């Protein structure tokens, strides 16, 4: 497998490192909504890589090797033996997310399907339902990784493109086929729980109304103080860890996508099952960075070796982490990079939700406030 990284900004245009492969099979690209919205960058990539599936999305910032940048980041992958298949779908609402996932899974399903990388609209989708739909039809042993597109701290519109210019309410998924390809994955948060545990006493799907019988939004406003003005973005500073009281080991972290001041509800990126226990979380820079490194280690542990040039790492980290860490966000990317080795190309973005198999259960699902690392390795061995 051969990989070439590219970047784009308004001053320099496209810049690449190394020779551009004419038979690249897959191009992934990530950038701010404003930079992608007019479709010109997609068209330029389309022209550069006529044989490739060109798949990308809007984000809350790009990761490129050891750096965090607002420039568009792209990577072209040229596989020797691996077949690829693209599936795209319209995802208009949280209610239809599962059906959308099921249709993608059906398109991609095959005996030699080695993994699926998904990019999804970040605001109109129930990510949990989407992933559940994909695994229901593609098989739950197939690792599904990826993330929800972002919109910086605006939370207004997210774009996804899959062999077409990025647009809203879209899901694009790439299936990797064959015996040569190996998909590694890792996922970790590094957030610390704090304060009392609260029961989800009223919720519907991914909309949370009450914790311990009191409006959930009030709790957030109280903890945010004057930063409440920045809702829903600032709510990402306090993720919620939730778990089924009967299976506390399968805890998940949820992040807020939207709030409704009128009815006091908060919309999360995934399900908020009534009866689950929740606990607020807060971040410590060092531990968040350590979490990112842990995700990278998990990802390479199975198949790849640190510094493997046959591999590429795709990092999807939560926008909440970037909002919290500010200028020090780069420290988590550096930490992940150290775990991956300096020679393995790494590309990624800050998202509204991360998709990866759960470390404990192995079931692919939506995560929030985490760093996820997917390594794609093609080996002739």
């Amino acid at each position, binding site marked *: 497998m051969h990989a070439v990284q590219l970047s784009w900004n308004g001053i320099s245009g496209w810049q690449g490192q190394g020779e551009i492969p004419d038979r690249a099979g897959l191009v992934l690209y990530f950038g701010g909504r404003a930079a992608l919205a007019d479709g010109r960058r997609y068209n330029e990539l389309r022209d550069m890589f006529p044989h490739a599936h060109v798949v990308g999305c809007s984000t809350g910032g790009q990761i490129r090797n050891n750096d965090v940048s607002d420039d568009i980041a792209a990577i072209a992958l040229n596989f020797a033996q691996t077949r690829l298949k693209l599936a795209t779908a319209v995802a208009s609402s949280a209610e239809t997310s599962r059906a959308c996932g099921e249709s993608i899974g059906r398109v991609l399903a095959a005996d030699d399907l080695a993994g699926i990388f998904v990019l999804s609209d970040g605001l109109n989708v129930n990510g949990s339902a989407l992933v559940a739909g994909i695994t229901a039809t593609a098989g739950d042993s197939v690792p599904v990784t990826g993330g929800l597109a972002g919109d910086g701290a605006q939370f207004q519109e997210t774009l996804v493109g899959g062999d077409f210019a990025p647009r809203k309410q879209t899901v694009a998924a790439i299936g990797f086929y064959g015996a040569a390809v190996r998909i590694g994955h890792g996922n970790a948060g590094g957030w610390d729980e704090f*304060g009392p545990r609260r029961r989800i006493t009223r919720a519907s799907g991914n909309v949370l109304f009450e914790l311990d019988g009191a409006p959930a939004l009030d709790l957030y406003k109280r*903890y945010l103080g004057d930063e409440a003005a920045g809702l829903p973005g600032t709510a990402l500073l306090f993720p919620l860890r939730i778990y089924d009281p009967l299976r506390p080991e399968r805890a998940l972290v949820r992040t807020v996508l939207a709030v409704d001041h009128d009815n006091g509800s908060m919309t999360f990126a995934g399900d908020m099952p009534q009866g689950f226990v929740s606990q607020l979380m807060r971040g410590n820079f060092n531990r968040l960075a350590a979490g990112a490194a842990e995700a990278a280690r998990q990802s390479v542990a199975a198949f790849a070796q640190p510094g493997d040039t046959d591999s590429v790492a795709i990092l999807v980290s939560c926008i909440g982490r970037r909002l919290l860490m*500010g*200028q020090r966000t780069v420290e988590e990317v550096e930490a992940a990079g150290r775990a991956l080795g300096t020679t393995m190309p790494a590309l990624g973005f800050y998202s509204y939700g991360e998709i990866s198999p759960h470390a404990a259960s192995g079931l692919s699902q939506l995560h929030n406030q985490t760093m996820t690392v997917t390594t794609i390795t093609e080996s002739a061995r």
Partner: protein
Amino acid sequence: MHRLFARQRLQATGPDGTVDLDALARIITDAYEQTDRDHRRTERSIALMIDELDQLNRTLELQVAERTVALGKRETELREQNLRFDAALNNMSQALLMFDGMSRLVIHNKRYCEMYGLAPDDVGPGVVLQELLRKRLAVGTFSGDPDDYVANLRARIARGLSFNTDIDLPNGRTIEICNSPMPDGGWVATHEDITERRRAEKIIAHMAHYDSLTELPNRVLFQERLAQSLVDLGADRKLAVFYLDLDNFKAVNDTLGHQFGDELLKQVGQRLRGSAAESITVARVGGDEFAVIVPGIADLAEASALAQRICTVIGEPYDLFGHSVVTETSIGVAVAPDNGTLPDALIKNADMALYRAKADGRGTFRFFEAEMDAVIKARRALESALRDALLEGQFTLHYQPILKLDDNTMSCCEALIRWNHPVRGMVPPAEFIPVAEEIGLIVAIGEWVLRQACADAATWPDNIKVAVNLSPIQMLNAKLVPVVVGALAAAGLPASRLELEITESVLMQNTEQTVAALHQLRSLGVKISMDDFGTGFSSLSYLRRFPFDKLKIDRCFISDLSKDDDNGLAIVRSVTALASSLGMVTTAEGVETAEQMELVRMVGCTEAQGYYLGRPQPLKDVSRLLADSLPRQAKSA
């Protein structure tokens, strides 16, 4: 250089390598602000968290306090309930044990230790049943092998059904154990001391088969034994059934009281038992009735000898609380197979033989004979016919005139009952009156006679009385006086025209009640006569006990009377003199000749009655006779 600052400087460095200090300052300021914000956030969230946790802590403390109180209350309740449970458990009359699936004791009560003489320390939770049994073995309240016992018990428990076992302890107590399996493989055992219950059951069983007074087998056991003896009877052997009763038991009971009667029965029972071998069953089958089974005899001589011995033994005097009493027994004997092979037939035949023995003079025994059956049947037929006779009006009254000897006029007619049976024809009173007395029909017959006689007499001239005989049985009837009054009233006959004739025997029984009734009747104006005077004890004390209006001298003094019979004449004369001195009139009965008529007149009798003066005759004949005599009486008047 700090890594962060290095990056900041790199960001502020232009392509030409110069550092834009303003940009660097902006970046650094921005970083400081980010850090400040994070600090504020951290502090705020920690403060809020502390508040929340504090609030939560207070709520928890409150809840803990409330729960502690509730727990304390529940603990108290539980303790009370345990005390009640303990009290209930330890005050049970039964011993109770609960074992788990490993035969280990879980619960027990004190009663168990008491019941089996175990020390309280020997018994406690966790002790296995085998160990308990070994301890009981040591103190002598268990017999057997503990391991076998437990293995057997567990096998039955495993079947899942409750079961009861009775065990007899070496100390003589009987214990009933009920074992009920529990779902965990254990079981609950209750032990109840049923010694007293068993004893009571034995007593009840004894009472059902033995007479409590004499301790002899009762009728039930007698019949069972008889049935069994008949089954066991060898082909060449015989079996005798004795039925016997005491000849004057009723008199002892009536005159001396039940206490004496009971004592007599007891002693009779003892003598009977003592006079027969052990193999012979002696039973009390009724009030003063006893029965004897003599099984397996070779011939009748054996039975005769025993019957004779019993008659002799029973006939000897008894000492009843210082009173010497003599009674006799009559015995009826039936023999199997000659007189029947079934218990009922033998009993019936022995009873018939008893009847014959009594009829033959009491104090003796009789073997059953086939013709006895016929006699009894005839008797039963007679009884039945008598009952019909009253209902169907087969009785009539005949009247025999009584003459006054001073003027030879008729003064009275004696009513005599006649039974004209549609098939048998005329049945003599001597044949049916005793039967009517025995079966109690005499009361009803007597009432009919009184009513009929009064009604007939009412059609006669006013100076003619009617005499009616009263049976001793009638005299005992409490309704006698109302019946007499009723008969007089119904007929419209003055009481002074009715004479009631009683015999000595009437005064021999229940004297006080009888005398009172006679006084009552006499105070109404009814005349009372002593009938058949001279035949019985002729005790003059009877004459003292009641002021009779008339003595009727029995025919035996009159029928042989002649002018040469000085003794006879002297007796009659002295009787008439005695009566006269007591203010009584005298009637000579059985006057059959003119000479006798003259003689009785000569010795001072006031009235005479007999065939010479007129036979008993139907009402229409006597009515005509009275009508004929009227003018003559009128003339003589």
